[in-house]
């Protein structure tokens, strides 16, 4: 079975209907808007030329030479769903506090122990949470360079039942991620952008 499962004919197309696709139809590789490396296939055009980028003053994009050299990705937990579960005692009991998953190598580099508060910043905003030091995330070698990746669960939002008592507020993961959307489906680039990490 070939890869072009969405085409009725089951094979790739050289031409696509006007207006149906903003790009393609050939398979291509582009780096995310914020990437630690240049595109290995064609360094002259790393990024997708037709992605939608918003142009407000908050929409800035960084590169490693701005100091943002750690890859950040975001994901979800089974114990929470978006932001509203921060108000449900059962979910809050399962995972009460936001955290950032970092590799043991990165933790050692920055002198971070599990449970320490860390500040993750992208060129757009900051995120403060406790660090989870784990073996499941490993340091990578990308383009011959040691590169770190961290993972941030997206949940918890501004304030939930775990914070009401102290009237403290949390930061939001959305303040880190870029508002860059896929030109066809408008899926945002939430899962690959650059940050820097330090002890809070």
């Amino acid at each position, binding site marked *: 079975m070939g890869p072009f499962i969405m085409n009725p004919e089951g094979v790739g197309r050289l031409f696509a209907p006007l207006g149906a696709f903003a790009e393609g139809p050939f398979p291509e590789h582009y780096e995310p808007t914020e990437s630690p490396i240049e595109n290995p296939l064609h360094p002259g055009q790393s990024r997708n030329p037709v992605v939608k980028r918003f142009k407000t003053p908050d929409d800035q994009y960084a590169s490693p030479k701005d100091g943002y050299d750690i890859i950040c990705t975001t994901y979800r937990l*089974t*114990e929470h769903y978006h932001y509203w579960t921060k108000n449900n*005692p*059962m979910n*809050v*009991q*399962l*995972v*009460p*506090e936001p*955290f950032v998953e970092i590799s043991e190598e990165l933790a050692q580099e920055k002198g971070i122990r*599990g*449970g320490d508060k860390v500040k993750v910043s992208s060129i757009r905003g900051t995120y403060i949470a*406790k*660090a*989870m*030091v*784990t*073996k*499941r995330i490993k340091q990578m070698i990308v383009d011959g360079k040691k590169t770190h990746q961290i993972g941030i669960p997206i949940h918890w939002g501004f304030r939930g039942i775990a914070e009401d008592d102290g009237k403290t507020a949390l930061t939001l993961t959305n303040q880190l991620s870029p508002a860059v959307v896929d030109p066809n489906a408008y899926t945002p680039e939430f899962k690959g952008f650059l940050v820097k990490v330090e002890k809070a």
Partner: protein
Amino acid sequence: MSQATLRIQKISGHAGSVPGEDTQRESQVCKLVDTTTCIGCKACEVACMEWNDLPFGETVFDNSYQTMPETRWNYWNLILFNEHVREDGSLMWLMRKNQCMHCAEPGCLEACPADGAIVQYSNGIVDFQQDHCIGCGYCITGCPFDIPKLNPKTKRVHKCTLCTDRVSEGLEPACIKSCPTGCLHFGTKEDMKYLAEHRAKQLKDHSGYVNAGVYDPPGVGGTGVIYVLHDATKPELYGGLPKNPSIPLSVKLWKQPMKWIGNILIIGGIVGTFVHYLRYGPKIVPEDSAKGDS
């Protein structure tokens, strides 16, 4: 005798025989936990809380996905996580559903001094009857799995009941019903053992886990909860599962030989003093001076 009484085969702290002993044909029930297909989603934790209406408790972040360090009086079912690096350097994220093991020879029942506080049904389920519990905590000492937990306010102990209220109505326990991957199974001990051995063989033959096996410790006579482990030679990797659990020796000594010897000594002592008095009588001082005369 009512049906309920005859369904009990062992009673803690009970003088005399148990009326329901060996009166039922029921076979032992068993919960099979396949740690190799568990994804740590905690649906079983939530199901247990919801079915038993347990009150919520405080938790804090502790550098792990594990909800809390150990079970509590109001949290009977807990997934224990362990990031284990194998000899070849590969990483395994081990997850084990931890709860009462419902041992065939329960240490908690053996240690309990209160009449009827802990019972074992003919189907093997070990249940705490909190209305008879005196809050002494001996069951905590008797259990080789560190399961019974005391409620500090009411001074009663609590643990997983293997959803005996559901099982006695022909339903499977709440955790089994909620498991999305189907790694939890429920049935008779024979059926679950068969399934477990079959799965362990599958792991050995097809997945390269040469030490895969079933955890059903004989030291406590076998358990009502059995595990399929990737490496049955190292159960301690799975959140500290004891390798060869049994009722602690001191509890066994205390409840069996010491009880007999002590009872003989006590009765012997009392009878001995009576016999001494019959034989030798009291000491007599010539001018009886007890009341100060002479």
